[in-house]
């Protein structure tokens, strides 16, 4: 426990402009602080402003753009930015809380802990609201898997996610993993959590009620993660290695105890307000809760349980030690709350009280260390808001000059297909997902890496369909349309499993916002997300922006990851993405396209990411999805799988490999007028779903498709013989497809 009263703390550095600049603040920002306080800030106050006004906490360079997104409507109960996570009503008195967040920078220097604490942080955002986490997803990007360092990052990020989630006891059910050279030094590690809460038991992140007590619960506070938020607001460089101490250390066991204790306390109605301590720790939680409640707060740091000696007020306030929560409770409930947390062997300590006025005042050793108006620190209050300069990137003209006609037609389509199935971006990700407990709590219906994961809601006949999506190559080639596609595909995945898309959370991974070309990408991508979400009626419930994803060479591809949550109204609607009945008729919903821009096929053939992103008509996409869901709800569809990376041929091969029993497909009919068969089979045109129906239902299906005016092609039939046959172009045993698909990543990882 704390022995600090016995030990002299170091003298504090003198606060100057130079010191402020070292803290990542600008000259203008420092002057604004002088103006707000009417004096030079103390060292502790400088620390507080620097983290609260860091990009990570303040969203200063993104918030103006984010406000253009549709952030209300539909079944939204809590809008973006109002609480720790968004909240959507799903009926039966239940709501789903979900959010995605990045942990890219910590994972770049310390992949295991970086990824683990990414999972831990997002889980706390969910259970802080009183919701029990029921699913974990992650969206990962790494460099080329032949690179030794990339293998190290991949292996340890996966282990970190697994070890944290497995122990914490939440199933890791879905996600995506992509490999591209641009992510070599700066991997992307985005973690998403989904939770369920009874609508009348939602907790708020607010400090109110004069004289109410402020409690810190959970782990004790150490020096780990100090300035993690500031670190996340810089580019990765060789100096980053020295920031390893900025990475926090995770303890899933304590988090599990914290979860159970927190839900118990919230469930018994003992909590006025609660916020988890993530980025900027005690500083962020106390000032945000105060600002939200229009309250002041007084805290005495002598009462914060510490795990290290002689910690200064600066260090305690900026520590990002994990597995901690800040609670506001009525004095009469303090004993009951303490009893619950002690039952779970957790620290609990009263560290302050809610006061009138606007100031958060912080004392240590009887000295006033900081006195700051809460409102001036927070997003939506006094935190800076910038509109950055934009400039269309010059590379766009170059990449679009590509003429696909110059690409030679391959001789051996079988070889192309096998190569695509073995491409790490397409290949089976079981090497990673088998390390995740995807079944704990026994609610997981579909397997990982089906079109979307299905989590049933026990006690109802409903389920959630959840998925993350983003093809960074498309966004690189065409930021606006690439972002639209990310939303469209995540919705399509949810629809293919039988769910109605309800809302999204997003994690916007971009380069340095002060680079006008990067900011142009950002602005366009946010615009694209907005376009798509308005058409699909899926509001943005919140999320996270991660800038400064750069390494010495260049920025990563702009990667706005979309986390989509949908509702399966009836468990009967749950639809698999693989063939299981020989004799079923295979139908392509949507148009036959020949677009290869940004495709894996083009990358395999040329080693380049070139061309334009595939076209997308949002209204057509929406009508296509509505039709697919209508067919599913009518009980007609026996499988549905969207066409994405690798195109039609890869999707068909995937559908033949899913069931584990020997099954194949024979595609005899391809539409007339195909210019390039390789583009038709391997191109990545959007708005396409492969469905199967029973032969008896074919006429009925065709009538329904026609009446909705959606293009379709009856492709062929599911066969008992385990071969994939596509016209005269492709004829391979499913076993060789499976071998290429399943062995690719394990082979690379064992080299």
């Amino acid at each position, binding site marked *: 426990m704390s022995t600090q009263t016995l030990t002299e703390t170091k003298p504090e550095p003198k606060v100057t402009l130079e010191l402020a600049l070292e803290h990542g603040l600008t000259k203008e920002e420092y002057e604004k602080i002088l103006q707000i306080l009417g004096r030079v800030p103390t060292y502790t106050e400088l620390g507080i402003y620097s983290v609260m006004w860091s990009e990570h906490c303040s969203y200063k360079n993104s918030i103006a753009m984010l406000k253009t997104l549709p952030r209300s409507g539909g079944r939204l109960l809590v809008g973006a930015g109002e609480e720790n996570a968004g909240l959507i009503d799903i009926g039966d008195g239940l709501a789903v809380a979900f959010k995605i967040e990045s942990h890219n920078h910590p994972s770049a220097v310390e992949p295991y802990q970086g990824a683990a604490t990414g999972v831990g942080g997002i889980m706390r955002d969910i259970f802080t609201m009183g919701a029990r986490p029921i699913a974990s997803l992650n969206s990962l990007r790494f460099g080329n898997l032949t690179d030794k360092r990339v293998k190290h990052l991949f292996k340890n990020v996966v282990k970190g996610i697994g070890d944290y989630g497995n122990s914490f006891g939440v199933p890791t059910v879905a996600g995506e993993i992509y490999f591209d050279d641009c992510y070599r030094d700066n991997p992307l590690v985005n973690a998403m959590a989904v939770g369920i809460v009874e609508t009348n038991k939602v907790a708020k992140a607010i400090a109110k009620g004069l004289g109410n007590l402020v409690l810190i619960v959970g782990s004790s506070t150490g020096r780990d993660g100090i300035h993690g938020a500031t670190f996340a607001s810089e580019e990765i460089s060789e100096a980053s290695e020295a920031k390893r101490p900025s990475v926090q250390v995770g303890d899933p066991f304590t988090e*599990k105890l914290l979860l159970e204790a927190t839900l118990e306390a919230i469930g018994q109605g003992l909590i006025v307000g609660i916020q988890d301590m993530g980025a900027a720790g005690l500083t962020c939680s106390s000032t945000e809760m105060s600002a939200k409640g229009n309250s002041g707060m007084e805290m005495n740091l002598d009462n914060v349980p510490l795990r290290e000696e002689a910690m200064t007020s600066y260090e305690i306030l900026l520590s990002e030690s994990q597995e901690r929560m800040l609670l506001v409770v009525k004095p009469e409930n303090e004993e009951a709350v303490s009893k619950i947390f002690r039952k779970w062997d957790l620290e609990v300590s009263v560290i302050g009280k809610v006061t009138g006025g606007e100031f958060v005042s912080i004392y240590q050793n009887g000295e006033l260390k900081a006195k700051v108006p809460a409102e001036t620190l927070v997003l939506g209050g006094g935190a800076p808001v910038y509109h950055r300069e934009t400039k269309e990137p010059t590379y766009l003209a170059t990449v679009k000059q590509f003429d696909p006609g110059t690409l030679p037609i391959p001789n051996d389509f079988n070889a192309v297909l096998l190569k695509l199935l073995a491409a790490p971006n397409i290949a089976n990700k079981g090497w990673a997902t088998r390390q995740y407990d995807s079944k704990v709590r026994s609610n997981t219906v579909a397997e990982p890496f089906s079109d979307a994961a299905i989590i049933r809601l026990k006690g109802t006949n409903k389920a959630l369909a959840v998925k993350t999506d983003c093809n960074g190559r498309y966004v690189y080639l065409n930021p606006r349309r690439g972002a639209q596609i990310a939303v469209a595909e995540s919705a399509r995945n949810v629809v293919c499993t039988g769910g109605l898309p309800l809302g999204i959370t997003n994690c916007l991974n971009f380069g340095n916002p002060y680079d006008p070309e990067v900011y142009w990408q950002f602005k366009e991508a946010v615009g694209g997300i907005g376009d798509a979400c308005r058409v699909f009626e899926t509001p943005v419930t919140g999320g996270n922006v991660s800038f400064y994803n750069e390494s010495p060479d260049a920025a990563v591809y702009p990667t706005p990851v979309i986390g989509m949550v949908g509702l399966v109204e009836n468990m009967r609607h749950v639809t698999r993405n693989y063939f299981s009945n020989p004799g079923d008729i295979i139908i392509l919903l949507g148009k036959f396209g020949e677009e290869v821009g940004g495709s894996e096929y083009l990358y395999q053939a040329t080693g380049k990411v070139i061309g334009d992103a595939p076209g997308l008509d949002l209204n057509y996409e929406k009508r296509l999805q509505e039709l697919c869901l209508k067919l599913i709800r009518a009980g007609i569809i026996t499988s549905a799988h969207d066409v994405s990376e690798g195109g039609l041929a890869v999707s068909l091969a995937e559908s033949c490999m899913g069931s584990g029993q020997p099954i194949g497909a024979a595609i005899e009919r391809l539409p007339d007028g195909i210019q390039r068969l390789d583009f038709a089979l391997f191109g990545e045109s959007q708005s396409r779903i492969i469905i199967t129906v029973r032969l008896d239902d074919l006429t009925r299906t065709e009538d329904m498709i026609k009446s909705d005016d959606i293009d379709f092609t009856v492709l062929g039939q599911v066969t008992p013989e385990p071969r994939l046959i596509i016209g005269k172009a492709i004829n391979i045993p499913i076993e060789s497809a499976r071998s290429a698909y399943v062995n690719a990543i394990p082979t690379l990882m064992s080299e």
Partner: protein
Amino acid sequence: MSKLKVGIVVFPGSNRDHDAQYAMESVMKLETRLIWHKEGSVGDVDAVILPGGFSYGDYLRCGAIARFSPIMTDVVRFAKSGGIVMGICNGFQILAEAGLLPGVLLRNESLKFVCDFINLRVENNQTRFSSQCNQGDVLRVLIAHGDGNYFAEPDTVKRLEDNRQIVFRYCDERGNVTKESSPNGSINNIAGIINEQGNVLGMMPHPENAVEPVMGSSDGRKIFESLVESFVYHSLSA
């Protein structure tokens, strides 16, 4: 006979306590009671389940701390007096640490956590946990562990084999016990064992995650049905 009552011990860090409760209560229609690890007695239950999870975080050897939980004294008493005790995954590790079952669970040979459906061959259907299976039945059940690599000294393994205390072995889809079919490197592909008296079972796989088609398999039901049946049989013969 009145409803069987199953006690499920909740250690700090248990995370399949709810899975076990759901399987027992909602699927098997038995009565359940969650027993907090700080309690001194298992109470008036007919059987005790030590569920899966990471008790105390398992930062030390798995199950090594949990065996010292207050409740464990009474679990040992309950087992010694013939009470039915079933340890699943982390529960198996705890039973081994507590000395109620021989051997230890080492790190998986791959050094990786593995979550997947695997096949189990029923090696002895004359037990209170397997009577509703046929000898040699292949059950499809989930595993989810990083430390499931069963090991014991050769004479202990021989004794287990001779006494037919090995109830389940990892096998392939056709029931062949091969090295490749073991997900963790367990000696003799051992997946589940009983004590000499036959009232304590430890198994790494999760039958509670295989009790409904929606879970991907219902084969785990046979294990719980055997448990229920054994009480019917015992109460009739009593």
